[in-house]
Structures are given as structure tokens and as C-alpha cells.
């Protein structure tokens, strides 16, 4: 519980202080609470606050389906409903939850709610007349019928259908006709959609501002249709291999007001096409051209200069760049905020020098795999770009503590730094500790980082949210002890292959209450005891990876089953668990939706059968050995699939790593 929560809680305990305030006032107070945990505390200590919350609560994220009907009635002011993590949600339960209610919900997130079909959506749309935004992404089973159900919501403004693999032109046409006020639409990965569908969409939804057609098989014809969308500002067409320069030229002749264009991985787009695009859209702000260009023509550079005032984001990943090119960019676009040069060959200190000389507003610099740059480049960045917040330097092995020292000194706003595989040591972390704003720190594969370095980090980086120590195998339990001392806000922690860590270290980690994702792959020394302390201490844990943790046994699973109630993703491949532990785990964890259990050699076939039956359709993803495919009962597999579970069968030999 945070300090705010505690203070309010105390007030409630007094009994008088809170009660005299009006519901409105209390609502205002509650609006200012950020952590869900604090909301709960308030609700528990004071009836007044509970009533205020009931009247004021706008957003709700349901984790299980059973309380859903009551929750929707308890919070009449709800506007946002997130059902993406709601385990075993299906048509019947969704329809029952919304049945008969006149809800004011505007936004619904159903991402990965693979159990929900068109019947549920129809009921939802009917019950929420004010629906404005729906996210149905990654419901791979969703198709035209689901799209048609959503099309009944005439007021829809935002719709995400990413990876709804069954959606075809027909479904898109349904949406286009049914929701003429659509402003944002994403049909990424809906591979069945063709030019015909996009054309109709462009004719019917004239209000579109943002459109994502990435990974579609559409051609230049679509771009021609899209070019007539007068209000279009954002267009993403990642990996549309049928689109080429001709299409971009058609687009440039259109009437839209494009600000953001993403042509990453469009194999047939060249700098010529981009030049014509820029020619038509003088107010382009963001241009993503990662992994599509092979060389930059002079025409593109001269056009780029016309975007001098507006361009803020430029991504050129995978391009062969030269000093002159970087110089031209630096001179042409001095308002750049973000530049992506990931995997660009030919980026040198000289190039960086000419780039940053004019671009003093840069906040994000991605130099992943630009392995020619040295400390000099870092010095130049530090000198010129004081606002830098994000610096990605993966595999830049020529840099060391000297360069980082200057960065840390000059750029106090640094929030994210990626030093994966840079070979930096503890000495580099000492200066980095000066960056008290640091949120994300990635130190994977830097095997010389030890407890000492972690102690530096924990001394000043109290805001750290994500820490990646993948294969930092000098880190021991003491390092973790030091870490949790200072960095209590860590949510994501990767300790894979740090094989010196034992249960003692995990006991320290137990004090990280906000930890959500923990990866402990291949820590052969940890046992059920360590897992227990994590399960008990890390109450927010959502994802846990225990692959190749050979000493973890049923005791660990019992602890997880008992305490890790928010756990959604779990990997226990190669663990020494039995069928009994597995059964108990799967029957108890009601939020669990994704489990990987390959090579559980101690679990019998009956064990798997039983364990999977007790999940009662909560699982959405499952990874198992393909040998089990034939021995598990067909009706079990059918039942799993009917509840929207995707099973990934793997066939690999049992290999023990250390």
C-alpha cells in the first residue's frame, strides 16, 4: 500500500473525517489514486469511500468472469471495461453479464479473449449503446461474423482487429457500412482482406484518421483508395510486399493529411517512392522506413530537407548509411526527436558527430548493433543532446564506462538504456547510478557485472521498473539483496542463466511487491522454497518462467497455487513436478491462461489429462510435447479448443542444460 493509501485509510478508521465529505469530493479523491491496490484499501476501510467508488469508478479490469455481472451493476458509471485478462470468458458468460443492463460503457478491450464469439459480441453491443472503441485484437478465431456483430455498434470510432485471422473483405465491409464514424482502424494480419475491401472502407468511412493495414496482401490499388481519405493522419503498412513506389506516388497525390507513415519492411519501396510521398505530404512528422531501403537516393535527401520543421521521428533501421547521409539528415531535420539507426552498417563516430551537431532535441537514439561507435560518439551525444531519454546501444562493444560517465553526467533525463552485449562492467554502472530517473536498464550478456554493480544501481535508481540481467552469471544472492534494497518498484526482472542464484536470492526478491514478470530460466539451484517466498511476497506476479529449473518440485507449485493468484503465464518445462502438483496448480490458479509444460517427465498421462480437465476452459495457450497429442483423449482436446485454447505441440529431445 502506498503512502497515499495509508493516509486515507487512517482517516477512514477515524470514522468522522471521511464521512462528512460529499460523494463528489470523495470521487475526486479517488480519481487521484493511481495504484489499484490503494483503491482496494480505501474500499475496505470506509463505507463512504466504497460508495464513492461505486458511483465514480470509470474503468474496470476484470480478471475472472464470475463476478462480472455483479461488478457491472455495482459500478453504473463505468466507461472502460477491460476483459483482456478475464479468464475463461465465453459467449454465455459475457452475454449473461451484460444481459438486460443499459450500460454506459464506451470502451471495451477484448484482446486475446479467444473464447468470445459473435453471440457474446452481439449481446455486448446491444447492451452498450454508447460503445465507441473495441479492441478485439489477437482473437485468432474471430472472423466475419464477429466483425458483423461489432458493426451493429453504429457509434464505433475505434476498432482493432489485429490478427483476427478469419476476417475477410466481407467482415471489413460489414464494419465499413455499419460504423461510418470510424476514426481508428487496425486490421493488421487479417490476411484475407484484399484491395476490394480496403477500397470499400475508404469509400464508406470518410472520418478515418488512423489506419493500420500492416501485413496485408494488398497492393497499390488500396493506396489509391486510401489517398482519398481526407482526414487520414496515420497510415501503417508494415511488410506489405505488394506495395511499391507507384503506390506511394498515388498516395502522395491524394488529399489526405498524413502525419505518420510506416513503410517498414515493404520490400518494394525505395527512397524514390518515399521522396514522392514526402513531396505530396509536406507536414509529415513520423517516418518509419525500417528494413525496407537499401540505399538512399539524392532525391530523397533533398525532399527530406523540406520536412525540416515538422519531421520528429525517422527510422532507417537496416540501411547502409554513410557519414554524408547522417550529415544530410542532421542538417535537414533539426527538430528530430527520435532516430532509429538499428542495425545500420556504416554508422561511425564521425557520422554521429554530424548527426547530433544540429539535432539537439533528440530524445530517443537507437544505435542497436552499430558496433563501430566508440566513447567519442557517446561524448558527442552527451554534449549535444541533453534531453536524451532513451539510448539503445546493444552490441556496441567498443563503449565503456568513460563514455557512459559523460552520458550520465550530461543527460539527467535518461530513462532507458540498453547495454545488452556491450561487455560493460561494474565500473560502468557506477556513473549510470547518477541517473535517478532511470526506468529501464538492460544489461544482458554483460557477464562481468557483479553484485557490486547492482549495489551502485540500487543506491540511486529507485524508480527502476525493468531490469534485464540475462546471463549476468556473476550476480549472486547478495546482489539481489542489494538490488531490492533500493529498487522496490521493479516490475520486470530477468535473471535467466544467472546460475549462482539460490533460494536465498529469491527470498530477497520476495520483497518486490510490484514485480509482475519474473524470468528464472535455468537456475538449477532454486527449489520450492525460493518459489514459495516469491509466490508469497510478489503479489502482483503475472508471468513466471521456470524453464530448466530442475530442482523446482511440487512444493513450488503448491506455493504458486496457494498464493500467486494473479499468475497468467507460467513456464514449468523440465521442472521436477508430478501430476498431483500440476493438477493442484491448474485447478487453483484461476487467472492462468498460458502454460508451457514440455518434458515434465514425472507427470503421467493421467496426470496431464486430469490437470487439463480441471482448467475448465481457462487456458488460452498451451505448449506440450507432441507425443501427448495421441494419448490424451480427443474430447479433452476438443473441449480445450472449443474454449478458445490454442495448443502448440513441440517435438524436441530431452536435453539438460546447466
Amino acid at each position, binding site marked *: 500500500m502506498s503512502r497515499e493509501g495509508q493516509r486515507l485509510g487512517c482517516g477512514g478508521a477515524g470514522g468522522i473525517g471521511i464521512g462528512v465529505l460529499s460523494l463528489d469530493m470523495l470521487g475526486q479523491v479517488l480519481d487521484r489514486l493511481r495504484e*489499484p*491496490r490503494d*483503491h*482496494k484499501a480505501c*474500499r475496505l476501510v470506509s463505507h463512504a469511500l466504497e460508495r464513492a467508488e461505486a458511483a465514480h469508478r470509470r474503468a*474496470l479490469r*476484470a*480478471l475472472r*468472469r*464470475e*463476478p462480472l455481472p455483479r*461488478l457491472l451493476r455495482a459500478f453504473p458509471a463505468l466507461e472502460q471495461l477491460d476483459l483482456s485478462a478475464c479468464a475463461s470468458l465465453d*459467449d*454465455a458468460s459475457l452475454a449473461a453479464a451484460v444481459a438486460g443492463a443499459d450500460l454506459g460503457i464506451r470502451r471495451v478491450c477484448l484482446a486475446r479473449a479467444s*473464447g468470445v*464469439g*459473435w*453471440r457474446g459480441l452481439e449481446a455486448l453491443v446491444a447492451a452498450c449503446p454508447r460503445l465507441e472503441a473495441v479492441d478485439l485484437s489477437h482473437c485468432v*478465431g474471430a472472423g466475419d*461474423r464477429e466483425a458483423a456483430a461489432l*458493426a451493429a455498434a453504429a457509434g464505433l470510432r475505434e476498432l482493432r482487429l489485429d490478427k483476427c485471422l478469419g476476417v475477410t*473483405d*466481407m467482415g471489413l*465491409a*460489414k464494419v465499413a*457500412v*455499419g460504423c461510418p464514424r470510424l476514426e481508428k482502424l487496425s486490421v493488421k494480419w487479417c490476411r484475407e482482406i484484399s484491395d*476490394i475491401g480496403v*477500397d470499400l472502407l475508404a469509400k*464508406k468511412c470518410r472520418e478515418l484518421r488512423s489506419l493500420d493495414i500492416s501485413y496485408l496482401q494488398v497492393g497499390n490499388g488500396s493506396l489509391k483508395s486510401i489517398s482519398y481519405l481526407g482526414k487520414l493522419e496515420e497510415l501503417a503498412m508494415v511488410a506489405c510486399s505488394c506495395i511499391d513506389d507507384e503506390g506511394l506516388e498515388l498516395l502522395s497525390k491524394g488529399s489526405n493529411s498524413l502525419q505518420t507513415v510506416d513503410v517498414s519492411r515493404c520490400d518494394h519501396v525505395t527512397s524514390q517512392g518515399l521522396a514522392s510521398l514526402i513531396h505530396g505530404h509536406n507536414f509529415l512528422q513520423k517516418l518509419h522506413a525500417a528494413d525496407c531501403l537499401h540505399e538512399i537516393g539524392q532525391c530523397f535527401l533533398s525532399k527530406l530537407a523540406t520536412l525540416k520543421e515538422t519531421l520528429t521521428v525517422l527510422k532507417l533501421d537496416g540501411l547502409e548509411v554513410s557519414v554524408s547521409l547522417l550529415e544530410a539528415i542532421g542538417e535537414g531535420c533539426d527538430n528530430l526527436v527520435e532516430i532509429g539507426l538499428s542495425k545500420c552498417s556504416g554508422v561511425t563516430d564521425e557520422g554521429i558527430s554530424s548527426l547530433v551537431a544540429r539535432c539537439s532535441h533528440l530524445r530517443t537514439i537507437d544505435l542497436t548493433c552499430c558496433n563501430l561507435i566508440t566513447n567519442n560518439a557517446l561524448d558527442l551525444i552527451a554534449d549535444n543532446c541533453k534531453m536524451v531519454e532513451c539510448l539503445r546501444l546493444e552490441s556496441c562493444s567498443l563503449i565503456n564506462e568513460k563514455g557512459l560517465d559523460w552520458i550520465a553526467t550530461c543527460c539527467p533525463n535518461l530513462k532507458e538504456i540498453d547495454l545488452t552485449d556491450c561487455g560493460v562492467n561494474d565500473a560502468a554502472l557506477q556513473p549510470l547510478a547518477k541517473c535517478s530517473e532511470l526506468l529501464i536498464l538492460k544489461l544482458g550478456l554483460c557477464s562481468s557485472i557483479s553484485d557490486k554493480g547492482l549495489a551502485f544501481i540500487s543506491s540511486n535508481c529507485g524508480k527502476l521498473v525493468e531490469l534485464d540481467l540475462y546471463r549476468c552469471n556473476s550476480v549472486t544472492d547478495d546482489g539481489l539483496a542489494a538490488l531490492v534494497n533500493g529498487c522496490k518498484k521493479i516490475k520486470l526482472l530477468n535473471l535467466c542463466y544467472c546460475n549462482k542464484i539460490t533460494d536465498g536470492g529469491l527470498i530477497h526478491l520476495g520483497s518486490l511487491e510490484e514485480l509482475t514478470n519474473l524470468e528464472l530460466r535455468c537456475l538449477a539451484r532454486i527449489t520450492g522454497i525460493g518459489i514459495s517466498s516469491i509466490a508469497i511476497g510478489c503479489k502482483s506476479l503475472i508471468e513466471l518462467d521456470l524453464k530448466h529449473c530442475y530442482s523446482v518440485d*511440487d512444493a513450488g507449485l*503448491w506455493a504458486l*497455487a*496457494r498464493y500467486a*493468484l*494473479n499468475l497468467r503465464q507460467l513456464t514449468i518445462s523440465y521442472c521436477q513436478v*508430478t*501430476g*498431483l502438483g500440476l493438477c493442484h496448480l491448474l*485447478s*487453483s490458479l*484461476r*487467472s492462468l491462461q498460458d502454460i508451457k509444460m514440455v518434458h515434465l517427465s*514425472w507427470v*503421467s*498421462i*493421467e*496426470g496431464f*489429462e486430469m490437470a487439463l480437465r480441471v482448467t*475448465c476452459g481457462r487456458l488460452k495457450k498451451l505448449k506440450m510435447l507432441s507425443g501427448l497429442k495421441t494419448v*490424451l*483423449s*480427443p*474430447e*479433452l482436446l*476438443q*473441449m480445450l479448443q*472449443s*474454449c*478458445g485454447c490454442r495448443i502448440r505441440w513441440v517435438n524436441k529431445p530431452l536435453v539438460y542444460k546447466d
Partner: protein
Amino acid sequence: MSSCSSPWKSTMDGNQNDICGQSANLTSNPLYYQFGLDNPLFGMGIQQPFPPSTSPFGASSSTNIPHMDWKPAMMLDNLTFIEEKIRQVKDVIRSMVDNGGQLPGRTGDIVQQQQAVNADLTCLIVQLISTAGSLLPSLKNSSFLSHPPAGHMDMANHVGSSSSMVPYTTISEENNEDTKDGDEGGDAGMDGENLLPGSYELLQLEKDEILAPHTHFCSICGKGFKRDANLRMHMRGHGDEYKSPAALAKPPRDASTEHAMVKRYSCPFVGCKRNKLHKNFQPLKTILCMKNHYKRSHCEKSYTCSQCHTKKFSVLADLKTHEKHCGHVKWLCSCGTSFSRKDKLFAHVALFQGHTPALPSEESKVSDQVGRVGSHQEPAKLTSSMGSFMWDNSSGDDTVLDIKGLDSCGDDFLSTANFGSFNFSFGPLDEIKGNPSEGSFAMLPSEHFQSVREKGEN
């Protein structure tokens, strides 16, 4: 064929007018007429390769060069070049004439020289053509050239070129590429459908002939065949004299038939537009066209589609074409209109406000999906098939859950009352002892598990 010919009607009518207009012109200029005959491959004005001064058709061409779009300076250059070249060739030939008697033994040299001369001459011709070709744009607008005598051109295919025309035919071959993209080079002009009456040989077969299944009959046994080649193969059985390569070979096209008039066909059905007595008579082009036309228009439709049992056809090929599409997904609009093609449906939907594509009916959709991936559309059915296995957990849970479900931070959710019994053979039972979750298993009657096992072993 009727369906195919009707769209052409209007253009043909138009062309006929043109031809009428030209005929006066043509008859008054016999030279031109012949010229037209000789250049079947060109839409128009292939005669321009010849500079005005050298044109054999001086009269007509001189009246038809109103503009001077080409650059005089360039033209002069070209002409100078040609002149120079001619002089060179002349020199060579002169030297050949001079040396001819003196060196009779060196025939190789002479052959070489002749080849060189030939090459030079070819070069000259090409140069002449390209020079004259630059005049082409200026001639384009001239009145008579822009309307080629299309009907006659078609006939020209069958008219052999006289010896005097040889150079012109070579010219036309070389220049073919250049004029291809001319405005008039379309199929319409070459169609031959607007032949003048009398310019072709008109044939009218009788009904029996048309409907006869075979057109080639064995002269010995009387067996009929559709194709002459099949007849020839058949003839082998009648004796060795039919097995010779000459007898089996395709009969060579008679030289005389090449020059014969174009054949056109008339439908025997009086009153039909394709009948020669009709006042707007339009002949049929080939014998196949006529057969199909007669069957489609004047015969009973005896072939019925085996899928829809409604569509009938009199030509077998039409039935086969229909059957390819029959029964395929119909693209339906919410207004009830159906389309055979998706793009047509989408164009319709785009045009009319409020219309929307209709998805296939419910039943077929569901059955589709069940077949496809054991769909999630039918949980109820599957549940019932699971027998005692799908414990109804939702009813039990509702009593346990309270508002804590909101953040799910409560720790009293370990209700496994809905969970099955555990006394079976995997994992050592001892491990349960001393576990933090004692009492959380409410055992179900063991017959539940028995059924599980049976199912599992299936």
C-alpha cells in the same frame, strides 16, 4: 456467337458509313486501291515511307501533306546521308563491273562484294523508311489516310503480291513495329465484319448440315468424323495405301484457295438477322460461329445443368462454362441482390447507402466452422458430450466471490469444491501431507474418476 457480335454492332455500323464515304475516293483512285490491298498489316498510312517526290502515288500523296511538322534541317541531313550512301554503293558496283572480266577466278571476292552491296542497299532502304517515317505525324490528319479501307485490307491477305510490289512488302514488314502503336491499329479495323456486300463468298448451309455431328465421312465405310485428321487416322485401317506419309500428312493448302474470296456464312433461318435475306444482314464469320449461332438461337436447349436444374443450354460448351460457376458462393447484399463476383457486390454496396454484404446463412456457417477447427461457437454441444467432466463451476463460484474479485488480491479463492477427486495413480500421495492447502480438496464420488479414466484410455 450472337452474344459476342452484338456489342460490335454499333462500331460496325459506323465503319460501314466510313467505307461508303471512301468508296468514291477509292474507285476514283485505282492506284490507291491496289495499294490498300497490298498493306494488310497496317492500320494506316504505311505508304508514307516514300518521300513525296519518290512516291509512286504522286497524285494522292501530294494532296495529302498539308503540314510540315518535321524539321527541314534534319530532313536535309538525312537526305544528304542517303545521297552519300547511294554514291558509295554506286562506286562499289562500278568497281565490280570494272573488275568483273579481269579476275574470273576469285569468285569468293565477288560473293563477298555482292553481300556488302546487299547490306548497303538494305541500309539504304531502312534509311529511306525512317526518313520518310518522320513525316508520319504530319500525314496523320490527312483525310483519306486516317480511314483505312478496312474491308479490303482483310481481303488483301489472300491476294498475292505481284512482282512489282516486292519492295513494298519488304518495307511493310520492316515497318510493322513502328506503326503498331498507331491510333487506328485496333482489332476493330481488322475485324472484317464490315465487308462490303459482294466482296466475299457467301455460303448458307442447310439445317441438317449444320446439326450433323460429323463433317468428314469415310469414303469407304461411311463413318463420320468431326475432324479431318481423325478421318485420316481412320483411313489407315482401310489399307496400306493410306499409311504413306503423304496420305497422312495434312493436305497442303491449295494455292488457289489462298487467293479465293473470303468466306462468310448465312443462317438458314429466314427472318434471322444472320440470314442473308434480312435487311440488316450481318454474315457469320466461320462455320463454327454459324453452328453455334444456329443451335443457340433456333434449336431447343437440351442440356440442363445438373447442379441447379434450371439453366438450360443448346451448346454443350455453354453448359460446361456455366457448371464451372454454378453452385459457387453467391455474393449477397442485404437488399437481396446477388452477385456472381465479389467486386460487383462491393461496387453495389459502395453505391447504395445502407446496403451491406450479407454473410452466408447461419447453418452453413456453423457447420463450416465445426468442420474446420472444432469451433468455439458450439460450447453447449461439446459440453454435453463431455459428460460428467465439465463440472459446473460458475454456479458454485458466484457464492464465493465478492467485490475482491475486482483486484483479485483476495486470498480465499482456493475453492476447489468444484474439482474432482484425486485418489488415482500418479504422483506419490505422501507429498500432499503438510502442504499449505489442506482441506481444499472436496473429494467427489469415485465413479466420477472412473469415468474419467475410461475416457482417458479411449
